[in-house]
Each structure stands twice: as C-alpha cells, then as structure tokens.
C-alpha cells in the first residue's frame, strides 16, 4: 500500500485542494465575505490551471494501472479548466441574484466536484474508476440543474436529467457487466487483449456507447438534452453543454481506443451510423427551435456529432482535433450562452424572435453572439472553421471511402446548421422590431466573459500555437 501514489495525481489533488478551500471558505467565512466567493473560485481555479499548464508533470500510471495521466490527459484537463473558469466568470453575476446567494457555495463546490469526476473519467484505465468518475460527474450535476429549485423548469429538468442519467448508467452497467463476463477484467488493457467477437460483445459495446451517448447527447440517446438545457439555469446549461460534453468525449475516446481498440470495427461502424444520425437529427430539430437555449441544445447535439468524427480517426490528429474542437466549442458556446444569459437576466426573454433588432440596442452583445454563431457554424476566420476543418482532416486521414462519405454527409449538414445559425444573426441584425430589447447594462463579469470568449473565437484559430501545443501534448 503506497498512498504516496495519491500525490502522483497532480491535477486531481490540486483540484481537491481547491474544492476543500472553497468549501471551507463558504462554510466558515463571515457572510459579508460571501460576495468574494466568485472571484475566489475563479482565482483558485485559475491558479490550479496555471499549475497544470506550467507544472512539471511526468506521465504516470498509478494504482496498479487504474489511473494514468499523460500530457494528453493533462491538456484535456487544462481545456476543461479553462471552460470551467469561463463558466465561473459567467456565473459570477448570476450567483449574486437574490435567491442564488444562499446556494452559491454549493454551486461552486458541486461544479468543481463534477469537474473532479470528469478528471477521473478521463484518466481512468479501469471501468470501475471510469464509472465512478462518470457518476461523480453526473449526480452532482443533477443537483446543479435543480439549483433554482423553485422554478418548474429547473426541477423538471433535474428530474429528467437524473432519471435519464441513472437509466443510462444502468444500461451502461449492464454493458460493463457483460464486458466483464466476456473478458474477465475491468482494466482497459485487459479488455483490449481478451475481447472476442460475439453478439454479447457487440451488445456490451453498444450498451456502453449508449451510456456515453447519453452524456454526449448522441442520437438516439439525446432526447433529454433540449429539455434539460432549457430548464437548467443558463450557467449550468453552458457548463453542461461544453465541459461535461468535452470530458465525456475525451473519456469516450480513451475507452474506445484503450479498451475496445481491438474491436474497433464494431464500434467504428456503430459510431458511423450514430454520427450521421446525430448530426442530421440535431440539425433538423434545431431548425425549428424558437427558444435560444433549446436551440443551442440541438446545435450542441449536432456539434457532438462533429466531435465524434475525431474519435473515428483513432490517431494523434484525431485526438488533437477532438480536444481542439472541444476547446473552440467551449469558447463559442459559452459566448453564446453568456449573451443569452445576459439577455435573459436583463429582460427575461429567451426566444430568438425576441432578438429582433438587437443590434440597434445592444451592438456589442449582438456582435458577440454573431461571432459565436459563425464560429459554431464553422465560418472563417473564426475558430470554429479551423476546428471543423481539422476534425474533417483527421477523419479523412484514415483514408477509407466510408470516411469520405461520412465527412461529406457532415459537410452537407454544415449547410443546414449554417441556416439556423444565420437565423439568429438574421434576427439580431437584419430584422427590425418595434420593441427591441432595451439596452442592457452588463456588469464586469459578463463583459469579461464575452470579451474573453470573443477573443478566443477570433484568436484560437488564427494563432496556430494552440493547435500545435495540443498536438505536442497529445502525441
């Protein structure tokens, strides 16, 4: 028993420290200091991110190979951290609201615990740890979704999320149990060497994919997404839509690669179908949405489909593109949610048609929203274009005809997605309204998050350093 191994988990341990510090601060600090909680959380997480980015970490494999952390995991964690910081900045003005004040401590602690769960999900090399990480990421998330607990949308969303999550984890557990039954182990490397082709294996893999499909909201496992995104508080939605999805995507890739790598034909085929379904169905639903949060939910479904293309590649470019896509997606989506959230808080309006003529009254917010939409749609020179291109690049790199077709279908879908992203732009810029949303005075946090995300949207693609960095870490 060598408990010093705990210290090897730099990211998790430091995050744990942050959680504990925040917990202590929230519990014991005098109530008048409560208003500094957001900035404390942001600072602490920022410090931890910097530590992750610049600290000296060796590639480790701990606890008998149950946990690994290489530079790829590290960069994934950094990306998630960046996203979480952005969400925290976005949240800072939200948690000041009257009802939220009393729950802000819980908000930060729970969010960070889900983040911790995601860390473990990504670093796991064993299905038990993976499953625990997954649950650590989803169960507190339920509480977060329900955090505005007196609003019907919020608890309805929470209930749906919870039941769906547990149902999917039950199915996933069933899958895992079959995998265990087939291979006799839950360690990825053991599975990799023991897995054999049989209906049971296929069923197990599909059940596992279904379970992850829930987290990633892949079609047909996506139906909860829109309702939960709409019902959850905007800040939680943005967290749910980017961080949770990003972590799941990476962990999913790790599992498919490290555990099911020898059965890749099966899951490649399954994922092939699922990607097509996801992108297409997500897009088709998104076309009809009026509520901006629902709209973003469906958009995030189709985005998840694109992210999955990175998994299909099974190579360094694939992993890099996936992480890069997630990073860009974090910035773009948080920008969209930040603007939507700011407008929601100021005017209570969430419908796209309410945005008519927004540019006249709120030019900066509109521009930020537009850039977010462009980035999501993959319009250059914004980051989304690069991430899309790279993800297609990695998919085609495999060189099979099927991939060409898949990318082609994905590309056709970008047209549909462009259509609905432009609908938002159209509302803001093209249309006039007799009663546009009044000019919103945003506070510093909102300004900061919008500024940072917009800067990210513009720079992440053009500055190749980001991609190079991720690539250097992944390879």
């Amino acid at each position, binding site marked *: 028993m060598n408990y010093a191994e705990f210290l090897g988990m730099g990211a998790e341990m430091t995050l744990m420290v942050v959680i504990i510090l925040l917990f202590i601060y929230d519990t014991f600090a005098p109530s008048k200091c409560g208003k500094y909680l957001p900035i404390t959380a942001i600072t602490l997480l920022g410090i931890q991110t910097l530590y992750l980015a610049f600290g000296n970490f060796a590639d480790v494999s701990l606890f008998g190979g149950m946990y690994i952390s290489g530079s790829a995991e590290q960069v994934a964690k950094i990306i998630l951290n960046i996203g979480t910081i952005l969400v925290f900045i976005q949240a800072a003005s939200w948690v000041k609201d009257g009802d939220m004040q009393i729950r802000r401590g819980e908000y930060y602690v729970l969010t960070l615990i889900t983040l911790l769960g995601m860390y473990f999900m990504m670093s796991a090399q064993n299905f038990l740890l993976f499953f625990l990480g997954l649950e650590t990421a989803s169960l507190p998330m339920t509480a977060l979704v329900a955090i505005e607990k007196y609003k019907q949308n919020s608890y309805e969303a929470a209930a749906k999320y919870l039941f769906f999550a547990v149902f999917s984890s039950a199915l996933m557990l069933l899958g895992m149990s079959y995998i265990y039954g087939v291979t006799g182990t839950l360690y990825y490397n053991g599975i990799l060497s023991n897995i054999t082709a049989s209906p049971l294996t296929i069923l197990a893999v599909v059940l596992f994919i279904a379970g992850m499909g829930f987290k990633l909201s892949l079609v047909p496992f996506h139906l909860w997404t829109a309702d939960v995104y709409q019902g959850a508080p905007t800040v939680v939605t943005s967290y749910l839509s980017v961080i949770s999805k990003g972590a799941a995507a990476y962990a999913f890739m790790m599992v498919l690669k490290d555990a099911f790598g020898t059965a890749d034909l099966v899951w490649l085929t399954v994922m092939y179908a699922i990607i097509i379904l996801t992108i297409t169905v997500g897009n088709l639903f998104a076309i009809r949405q009026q509520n901006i949060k629902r709209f973003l939910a469906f958009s995030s479904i189709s985005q998840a489909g694109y992210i999955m293309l990175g998994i299909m590649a099974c190579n360094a470019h694939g992993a890099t593109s996936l992480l890069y896509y997630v990073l860009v997606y974090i910035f773009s989506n948080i920008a969209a949610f930040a603007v939507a959230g700011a407008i929601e808080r100021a005017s209570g309006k969430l419908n796209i048609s309410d945005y008519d003529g927004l540019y006249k009254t709120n030019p900066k917010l509109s521009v930020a929203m537009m850039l977010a939409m462009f980035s999501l749609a993959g*319009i250059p020179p914004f980051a989304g274009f690069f991430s899309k291109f790279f993800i297609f690049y990695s998919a*085609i790199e495999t060189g099979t005809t099927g991939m060409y077709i898949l*990318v*082609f279908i994905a*590309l056709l879908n*970008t*047209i549909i997605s462009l259509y609905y992203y*432009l609908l938002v*732009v159209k509302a803001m810029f*093209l249309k006039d309204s007799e009663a546009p949303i009044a000019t919103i005075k945003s506070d510093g946090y909102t300004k900061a998050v919008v500024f940072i995300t917009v800067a990210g949207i513009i720079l992440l693609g053009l500055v190749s350093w980001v991609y190079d960095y991720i690539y250097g870490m992944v390879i």
Partner: protein
Amino acid sequence: MSILSIFVVIPILMMGGLFLSKSMTQIRTVATVGSALQLIASIVLVVLFCGERAAGNTAEMLFMADHVWFEPLNIHYAVGVDGVSVAMILLSAIIVFAGVFASWKINPLPKEFFLWLILLSIGVYGFFISIDLFTMFMFYEVALIPMYLLIGIWGSGKKYYSAMKLTLMLMGGSALLMLGILGIYFNSSVDGNLTMNILEIAKNNAIPESMQNILFPLTFVGFGVLGAMFPFHTWSPDGHASAPTAVSMLHAGVLMKLGGYGCFRVAMYLMPYATVELSWIFLILTGISVFYGAYSACVQTDLKYINAYSSVSHCGLVLFALLMWNTTAMTGAIMQMLSHGLMTALFFALIGMIYGRTHTRDIREMGGLMKIMPFLSVCYVIAGLASLGLPGLSGFVAEMTVFVGAFQWDDTFRRVFTILACTSIVITAVYILRVVGKILYGPVQDEHHATLTDAVWYEKFSTITLIIAVAGIGMLPLWVSDLLRDSISVISERILQYI
C-alpha cells in the same frame, strides 16, 4: 513580409480604422484612402511583376513567401502570384475602389457596411494570393459570409430569402470543396510527404487517377457554384437582385471570379487527368449556362435579374473556355473574368444609381432616362456595349480569345458547343439593346422621373474608374494577354499532356 501580404494587411488596418471611426467623414476617409492604397499597391504589383518577368524570372509564381502555420497538418500560409492572380488582384482593387464610391451615401449603419465590405475584400485578396489549399479555402469562405449580412441588412426586395439562399448555396459549394481539398491533400504525394501547397502538389502529380475522377467534380462543382454554373446558378439572380449596389458590384465583379479562378487553379491544375476525362460533362453544363443565361435574360423585366442572368451567361463562358484547356481559350477565360468583372460591376453600379433615383428596377416602368440623366445613361450604354462585345471595350477581346481558343479543337462535340456559345453574342445584343431601348431611349415613361437629377461626383468617379478600366483592357489587350499567357500555358500544357 512579402509584398503580397500587404493586400491582407491593408484591409485589416482599414477595418481597424473603421472600427475607430466616429463620423461619416472619417468612415469615408478610411474607406477611400484604404481602397486607393490597395489600388496603388495592386498597380505597383503589376509593374513589379512585369519587371520581374522582363528580367527573365521564369518561376511559376513570384513573390513567394511561405510561413508554417499549422505544422502538424502541413498547413502553411503560403503566398505567391502568377500573372493570373496579379490580374485578378488588380481587378479586385479596382472594383473595391469603385465600390467604395458607389456606396458613398450608404444608409443605415455605414460603418458596419464598410467593415463587412472590407472583410469581403480580405477574403478576395487572400484567395488570389494564396498557394496553400487551406489558406485559399479559408479566404474563400471569408469572402462568402459577409454577403449574408450585406444583402440582408442593406439589400432590398425579398432580401432575407435571397441572402439565405445565396449563402447556403455557396456554402454548399464550399462543402464539396472542403472535401475535395482534403482529398487532394491526402493524395498529394506518394512518399508520404503530404502537402497543401499547390505548386508542390502539381509537381508531385501524385493523385491517383481514380481519385482524380472523384475529386475533380467535387472541386469543380464546388467552385462552379460560385461561378454560377448551370444548374447551380439560381442563387445569382435572387442574390444580385436583392443586394445593395456595391455588394452586387463586388459579388458579380470579384466574387464570382473566385469560382472561375478556383476551378482553374485547383481543379484543373492539380488534376489534369480528370480534367481531360471529365471535361465533357462540365462542357455541357457550362455550354448550357452560356446559352441559357442569355436566353433567360431576354425576358426578364427587372434590371438586376437581366444582369444576373447575363452574368450566368458570361461566367458560363469563363468556365466553358477553361475547359477548352488550350492556352488561348484559357487566356480568354481569364480575360473574360476581368472583363466581366469590370463591366458587370459597372452595370450594377449604374443600376444601383438609377434605382436610387427612380425607386424601381422594372424596365416597364422606366423610359427616356437618357434625357433625364444623360451621364448615367451614357455610361449604361457603354456598359451595354462592353457586354455585347463591342471592339475597343473589354468584352470583345475576351470573347474573341475564348472563341478562337475554343475553335482550335476540331471535334464535333466542342465545335457544336463553341458555335452554340458564339450565338450567345447575338442574344446578348438582344437583351442589352432591349433594356437600353426601353429605359434609356424613347419617351419619358413616368413624369415623376422627369425631375430626377443626374449623377453626382462620387457616382461619376465610381463609374468613370470602371469605364477607364473596361476601355483600357479593350483598347490595349496585348499587355493583359501577355501578363496572363505564360502563367496559363504552364497549366494548359500540363493538361494537354494527358490527352
């Protein structure tokens, strides 16, 4: 920094300047100075280029610069120009310059208008200077998306529909294109040194024939959508009709050229085998474009629709000529691009100015404008004459070069289509003269029009710039064709090897 990057830097600086501008005067100053600088820079570029060539520099591309951008993916920011790109840059600079003056009084949101316009021009310049497929593609899309806002905000008529249709169709094209580019990249080399650089891909010439047969249609159609190739041209009439003046100018004048240029530079240059194999399909399509656009234009009643269909016909001729492969026809194609760019821009500028006064574009509601606004009308006649191929104006030299080039083939298939294409010059005369006769000549149709005023200085400036350019090419075509010929013959010979 390479001299070429100036063409991207100036617009970026302009955008910065516009961003800081407060008043209309400042906005105009920035836009004017910036576009004038660009025009000067492009003229300097032409001079430098000719100087280099005269000094015996026979490299395929000049002023090359190459910066690694995304190293893991072999993506470079690689620029370089040959005669064709130089000509295209000059064309763009002229039209942007004229476009700025044509939108002198743009309203509302002048600042935003110019910002988008300049962004569009970044895309255009970047596209023409790039020799890296990725960079090229990126600039290509940069040029497309501002159209949505430019048409949607400042357009007229059913602008939402048109803007959306245009954007989606063009993006559809670029979706094909992206696939094509990726396919090209992954087949760019046999020894694993994959590259995005056009020159290297061409040098390696490693794309397997079976792949070429797939990738060529993808890229050709992808660019062809922007080049208004039948049957993917339908965005053009609606888009042009709804767009504001300067946008129509830029779009027809420059953006549609991106399509032709791309077909030429990417599809045909990189995939000569498939070009030879599959040209017949596209010859049919483009031949139809030429013919079909012209006939459609005959019965339209909206000025902009007439011009849009005329553009379909003329741009069809560009692609048609490119598919004839020989140096002459391809030179003609590029000259047709220049010519069409300038005269269509002129047309749209004039239509915009006329529309700004009469508030109608329906030719049935206008008449006798020659009396009311002689300057605009005369310019319109000149544009019309250029369009129907009057010698001394640019249309003639371009069309003749195309036809002579196309006639160098003596198989029946090409002959028939060439002659069919030739007939378009008659039809062009029909619809041009129909419009001129209807709206400029004859008695004044609407007495409200009688009190309208003629062009003001900035409008005159805009149109005169374009007319000078149109006449310049028309009168002294040799320098243009000399500028183009060497660069084109490289590509042409490359393709002809595969016959």
